[in-house]
């Protein structure tokens, strides 16, 4: 314990209270970002306000472009990244939807743009409150998507995101998502690392292709049917292959900063009969509490949190749940018109199929537009899983928890 404290002393500059949004801003400052462009939208706004303040005070030497829309924010990031700069933007909800076209283009051009996205419900009706519908709509755009569950993890993930995105084996944009409001606006203790250590961990990749008159290249071409498919396949391949790079970089980060990240987080999963699969802050935190309660009552339960959503950690998820008696996937997003309306549920089922594993899995939706997820809800869910197991009857459709009749 003592030795560990010593390590922390060596790496930690200060421990302060931060919202997840401010944690993002500090990470952006610590990795020395060159160009930031963003447009205000709740619950993202306080990120760029803080960054604007850093720039205004000379604490971060960056160009801050106060663009006229999110579409232009991401477009400016594409331009700046193509010119060789390290870039950052952030958005939520409608802003992420307005960027959608450029999300595909960013990955297609293989640009290491990093973006923070506190999740928020989508219109109509307007809701400023947190869930993950916006994030899930971005899941087929070729971006690496990390979903953090604490402000510390948000800070750490942004730092890692630059290493991952700019790695020559990857060269893909990275999105760091987390709960709107429940994290974006909630203060937690965060350990900030010494700036020089963060910078040493995130050196710029100066050898990636860039727009340079001394070595002209053409970016953003038109491709005939004879070429398009192969070029897009390279994106598929890059994101698939990125999992091992992500694990490698996480390993290095864990060693350098004394953390313990993996592509999934396991809480009392080892011997669990009943597993809740979650992502993000609130559902995971409450799921852990519910699991503790279940354990006190003699039910062997656990939580498996998806930390890296894309590339989906297929092997890790299946390995963690393959011996369980029943599993529930708690989605905070909707996939209307699908057989099951929980998007991550569909990923989990596909993952099991790919590994030839079959475990009873239940699709649960909760926390839409920040509808409160109570610990008792999740405890009750675990009890239901036991019940399903005992009766052999598993619901074959999505359970909409917290929905008024």
């Amino acid at each position: 314990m003592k030795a560990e404290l010593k390590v922390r002393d060596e790496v930690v500059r200060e421990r302060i209270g931060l919202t997840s949004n401010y944690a993002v801003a500090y990470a952006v400052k610590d990795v020395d970002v060159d160009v930031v462009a963003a447009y205000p939208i709740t619950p993202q706004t306080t990120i760029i306000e803080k960054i604007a303040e850093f720039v205004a005070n000379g604490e971060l030497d960056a160009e801050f472009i106060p663009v006229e829309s999110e579409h232009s924010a991401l477009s400016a990031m594409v331009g700046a990244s193509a010119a060789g700069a390290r870039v950052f933007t952030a958005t939520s909800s409608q802003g992420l939807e307005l960027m959608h076209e450029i999300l595909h283009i960013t990955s297609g051009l293989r640009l290491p743009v990093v973006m923070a996205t506190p999740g928020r419900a989508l219109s109509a009706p307007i809701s400023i409150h947190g869930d993950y519908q916006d994030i899930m709509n971005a899941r087929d755009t070729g971006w690496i998507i990390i979903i953090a569950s604490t402000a510390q993890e948000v800070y750490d993930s942004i730092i890692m995101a630059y290493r991952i995105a700019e790695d020559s084996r990857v060269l893909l944009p990275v999105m760091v998502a987390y709960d709107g409001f429940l994290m974006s606006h909630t203060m937690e203790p965060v350990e900030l690392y010494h700036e020089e250590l963060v910078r040493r961990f995130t050196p710029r990749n100066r050898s990636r292709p860039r727009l340079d008159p001394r070595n002209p290249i053409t970016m953003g071409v038109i491709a005939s049917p004879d070429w398009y498919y192969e070029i897009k396949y390279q994106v598929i391949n890059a994101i698939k292959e990125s999992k091992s790079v992500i694990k490698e970089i996480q390993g290095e980060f864990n060693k350098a900063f004394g953390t313990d990240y993996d592509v999934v987080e396991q809480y009392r999963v080892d011997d669990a009969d009943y597993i809740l699969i979650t992502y993000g802050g609130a559902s995971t935190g409450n799921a852990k509490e519910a699991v503790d309660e279940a354990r006190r009552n003699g039910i062997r339960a656990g939580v498996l949190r998806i930390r890296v959503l894309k590339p989906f950690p297929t092997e890790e998820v299946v390995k963690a749940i393959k011996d369980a008696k029943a599993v529930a996937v708690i989605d905070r997003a909707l996939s209307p018109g699908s057989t099951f309306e929980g998007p991550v549920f569909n990923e989990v089922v596909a993952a099991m199929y790919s590994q030839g594993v079959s475990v009873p899995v239940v699709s649960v939706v909760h926390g839409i537009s920040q509808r409160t997820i109570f610990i008792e809800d999740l405890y009750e869910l675990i009890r239901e899983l036991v019940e399903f197991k005992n009766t052999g009857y598993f619901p074959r459709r999505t359970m909409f928890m917290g929905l008024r009749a």
Partner: protein
Amino acid sequence: MKVYFRNIRELPAEERYGPGQLTCAGCGPSIAVRWLLKAAGDDIIVVNATGCIEVTTTSFPYTAWGVPYIHVAFENSAAVASGIEAALKVLRRKGLTDTNARVMVIAGDGGTYDIGLQSLSGMLERGHGVLYVLYDNEAYMNTGIQRSGGTPHFAWTTTSPVGKVMRGKVQRKKDIMGIVMAHHIPYAATANIAYPIDLANKVRTALERLNEGPAFIHVLAPCPPGWKYPEEQTIEIARLATETGYFPLYEWDHGKIILNPPSNTHLDKSRRKPIVEYLKRQGRFAHLTPEDIKEIEKEIDEYWDYLARLVKAFG
């Protein structure tokens, strides 16, 4: 404008554009791009909006571009250019690059008057040192000749057809120069591919001004299939556009309006060729009645009236 080139022989001999581009024979925009790149020199990064030029010059694995080039989408070239300009600025400051490259947008009328207007306005308002060149072929040509905000009154396009009830485009052409000048940028100008020396000098002048802020050049660039004339007549028709007063050549330089030759004599209507000379050469106007032509003439006179007042106020 400053005079950098006095005649065609003084333009650089090197070609930074093509061969290998796939535009139609007689393509006005393609001619424009050739002059633009000759005038701009080596230290340039081009941002291109989606449109004819982009799809005909970057057909993977070939490229017609001898300078760094990026295309991202249709509506965002000004935003992309803003990002590049900001990146070069900060990278120079941090000692991470030593290039002095300037950024030049090349975008069509659709990408400028319509879908890209927001990002253009944002870029101008924020004052990025970017040269934005609008090549105006007066319709969405890449998607097969649909009307844009730059399409002139009465012109036929596939979405402003000539039928029993409507005869061509119902609305007038949008005053893009007025919109741009309203942003009070250091330099804006109109140009025409039929006057390449004027065009090249305006490009150089604009690039010189970029340390003060954005510059804008509106280049008229006729399209043989879209305007329906034989492809060898592109330059003749372009020249008629200016000689008839339809497309005046002028500059906005630090709040001053300057008419350039031959438009500098055109405040006097008798020095302009009759508009019918321009209209009758193009199939897109083939359906015009004498009244329609009168109406167009009246609109051009009104525009000259407006220009005269601008010259008086800002000359």
